[in-house]
């Protein structure tokens, strides 16, 4: 917006200055005749032509960042809220799986008093083997069926002794800009039309940390944002 406002303002100022100085320099009464109008029109076209040549020389090919498509992903997404049930999480793509040896007690800490940005689930095993299995499922960010999940940085939990600290997830900012020709222009070119008027659809699912803990392991610490699978 600032860019275009600056552009427009510059153009208007140039025009006003041009008219002012034309009248001063020529010393004659400056009339906007048909000649002036056609000069402006053809100058504008010439400017566009020059810009076309420049862009075709500098950027001759169309480039599309190959963001993966995931047309079914929305089936798994609960938009705007965390997964309600452990079973609803897609287990097919864990980011990482780790195991930790923990003795009798596990203390949970959070980096930040607020929600860290990840859903934390704790599930109990049938045995007391002293091993905590950690499954981390990547977050999902979708815009118009494009999966941006791989662009996301994640902060893994830090394990030290019998304590685990869940770090606040880093801020994910993704700016995506694209140029597309108008659908009218491409009526007969065979180019795919990107229908801007249908709007954008988006969805997300936060990172899920799933801990499978021994049956009798005591868990304490900051349990506010921790969910227990009671099944």
């Amino acid at each position: 917006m600032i860019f275009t406002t600056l552009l427009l303002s510059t153009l208007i100022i140039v025009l006003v200055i041009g008219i002012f100085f034309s009248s001063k320099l020529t010393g004659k009464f400056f009339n906007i005749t048909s000649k002036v109008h056609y000069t402006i029109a053809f100058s504008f076209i010439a400017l566009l032509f020059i810009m076309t040549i420049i862009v075709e020389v500098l950027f001759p090919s169309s480039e599309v960042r190959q963001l993966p498509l995931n047309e079914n992903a929305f089936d798994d997404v609960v938009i705007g809220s965390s997964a309600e049930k452990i079973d609803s999480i897609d287990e097919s793509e864990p980011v990482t799986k780790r195991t930790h040896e923990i003795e009798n007690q596990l203390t949970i800490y959070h980096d930040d008093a607020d929600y860290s940005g990840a859903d934390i689930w704790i599930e109990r095993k049938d045995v007391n083997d002293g091993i905590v299995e950690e499954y981390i499922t990547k977050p999902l960010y979708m815009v118009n069926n494009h999966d941006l999940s791989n662009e996301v940085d994640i902060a893994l939990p830090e394990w030290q002794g019998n304590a685990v600290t869940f770090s606040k997830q880093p801020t994910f900012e993704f700016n995506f800009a694209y140029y597309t020709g108008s659908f009218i222009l491409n009526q007969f070119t065979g180019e795919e039309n990107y229908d801007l008027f249908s709007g954008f659809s988006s969805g997300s699912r936060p990172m899920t940390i799933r801990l499978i803990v021994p049956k009798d392991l005591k868990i304490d610490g900051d349990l506010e944002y921790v969910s227990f699978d009671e099944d």
Partner: protein
Amino acid sequence: MMTIIECKNVTKSYRSKTIFNELNFTIKENSLTGIIGRNGVGKTTLMKMIAGFVQESSGSFEVFSERPFNSLKVSSNSIFVDDLMPFPQSMTMNDILNECRRFYFRWDHDLALRLMNYFSLHPQLKIRVLSKGKRSTFNAIIGISSRSPLTIFDEPTTGMDAVVRKDFYRALLKDYIAHPRTILLSSHHVEEIEHLLEDVLLIDNHKVLFHDSITALQETFLHITGKEQLILKHISREDIIATKETGPYVILTVKNQLTDDTLEAMRKDNIRISPISANEAYVALTQRTKGGIDDVFK
């Protein structure tokens, strides 16, 4: 001489209002004809019909042997000039003169520029900045410089001051003499144009009331000046068209139907007989009521 305009039983009406009712006249080539009449008689409508802008309701109307409405031949050989001649507001006078040069085959560009210079019109100015009088002057310059075989001036002097009007008429006359063509001229200032006109076409009451030379118009009436009692010994009251009192005497306007003997007898009684101007004749012909405006205040 070729007939330029032929009008046979032409009627023009708008909804319930009749403008003309079976109008008949012809105008020959190379004549300067004044079209005169009271306000609202249809002078402008008639001129627009001649120019092909308005079509007749019935009858036969021909200009250059063609029906003028939507005729290319009539359009290219005529020009209609009035004070409202519409030109694009964004164009300068120079632009418009250049357009005229392309459209009118007899256009004299040098004359146009000289006239512009004489009347102090700056060619680079746009139409919209001109005053009413200057605008009329510019339109009149176009009318003169076009030298169209049929040039129609409808109240061309609207807004012009007296000096400019005089110059315009003089320019028109000079160019007409040098380059004869058919000119139709209407004006409310009949007294200003009567010295220009060869013929007069007087419209009144939806018809042509008079169509002849200007001299014939002037000879239609006489002014008789003297004591009223004395004059009435020679003519009857019914012959009097208009009366004007000037002290002990009256000036009577009467139709010129008096015999030579009557005129001689009146002269012997020191009654003065004088011709009237075309303007006065026109007023006399179109007077609706007996007497003049003075009678309203009696």
